[in-house]
């Protein structure tokens, strides 16, 4: 009975939960100074209960603005904690990526294990929508990092090296001749912006 007296206090922390839309991957494109953020949202409303991706896009003057606009599209909350991949188009990384890296690190929802990759010869959103399987990109990046085909650079490591001397490497991806998403070497960043690509395995490649 004594414990029941404290129940109203516990109710202070309760509230109506809003429906969340878990995001598995993000893609960032930039055209004429306008950023376009595309999110791969995991849907589990099919009759056989399998996870299927749905794609939502929003534009903004910067990433923060685009993310805010993306959140306003949905009636519920955009849940970024499950996001494992961030695809960046070449245009999006032609300017300094340090503000983006800092923003993502500070964002409460985003996990520091998020893997960023640069998309070659195409838009990031197209590559994101190329696979119809949820988490396929993250598995590809994980596997390639383990095999040494692509650099193992999660968000926290990229941010650290960019702050240290503005130089970093990121994995690169492209849609190959067969329409499959494939590793495409390494993107090299100098002074916090994309400088060049290295093809092939790390350390043994040549400039593209």
């Amino acid at each position, binding site marked *: 009975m004594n414990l029941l007296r404290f129940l109203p206090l516990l109710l202070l922390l309760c509230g109506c939960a809003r429906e969340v839309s878990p995001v598995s991957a993000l893609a960032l494109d930039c055209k004429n100074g306008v950023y376009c953020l595309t999110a791969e949202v995991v849907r589990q409303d099919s009759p056989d209960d399998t996870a299927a991706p749905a794609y939502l896009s929003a534009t903004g003057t910067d990433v923060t603005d685009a993310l805010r606009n993306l959140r306003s599209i949905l009636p519920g909350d955009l849940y970024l904690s499950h996001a494992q991949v961030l695809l960046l188009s070449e245009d999006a990384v032609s300017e300094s990526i340090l503000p983006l890296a800092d923003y993502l690190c500070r964002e409460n929802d985003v*996990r*520091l294990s998020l893997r960023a990759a640069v998309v070659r010869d195409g838009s990031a959103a197209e590559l994101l929508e190329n696979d119809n399987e949820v988490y396929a990109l993250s598995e590809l990046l994980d596997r390639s990092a383990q095999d040494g085909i692509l650099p193992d650079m999660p968000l*926290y490591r990229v*941010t*650290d090296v*960019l702050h240290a001397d503005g130089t970093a490497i990121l994995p690169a991806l492209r849609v190959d001749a067969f329409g499959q998403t494939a590793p495409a070497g390494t993107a090299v960043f100098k002074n916090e912006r994309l400088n060049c690509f290295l093809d092939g395995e790390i350390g043994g490649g040549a400039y593209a």
Partner: protein
Amino acid sequence: MRERLFPRWCTALFALLPMSELLYLPADGQSVYAAALACTVCALAGIGAARLSDRIRHSAPAQWVLALTSLFPLLASIARMSIFLQKTVFTGRSCGSTVVLLTVCILFMASMGLNRCAMWALPIAWLAGTVLLLSGVLTFTQLTPASFSAPTAALLPQFRHILYSLLPASVVLAFSLPETRLSASVSRGLSAGGALLALLLLRTVLLLGANTAALLPYPAFTAAGLAAIGNFARHGEVFFAVPLLLCEVGRCAALVCALLYPFTRTCGVLHLRRPQ
């Protein structure tokens, strides 16, 4: 039978003090040394205070001074826990609601008295120690030794910061001990907790790098999120933060016991009503 405060309980209670600092400390190359140094100083001060605890117990003005001193670390702990919860878990809630909830939990625990708070500190310390070590082991392969740095004079501001936060609580609780022979337990607890604190700070720096850690409000908490067991347990920070919050609630409850000692004059159960 008279309630006793056994040495191992006392060790556990004092081990909670440095461990409850972990969530809030910044992590860089110097914080490891600063934490180790501050815990050593606190252990030495704690031994001295525990040896004088007999005299303090028999002096009413000293008890009042002690009670008033315990207010500072107590309020600081409640404030930082509330802010932490509000920023990480209850983002839509006001800080006031978490303050109320934490205060109720602390008072509830404190009503058991200092001896039983120390008794409960033993399983909490083991739980926290196990979880923290497991978290360290799971991220061991991701550590980058290049982030390691030698001690420099830059550790002094951090040393002062940790000392301000840890020393008052250590000294107040050491003065409040019922027996002087527990002084060895005080130093053992603070040293063990301090060693774990320094190790976990080292893990944070080597894992995140000093630059990334500097961007984060709670670097040790965020670093724990990188500890995962396959795809199963990916939110390691939750398992990490809960025992640490329990440590801090235990520390606050012990401080409340010290605060109320001039009224209750007991280290045993605090009777909220007059006995019939």
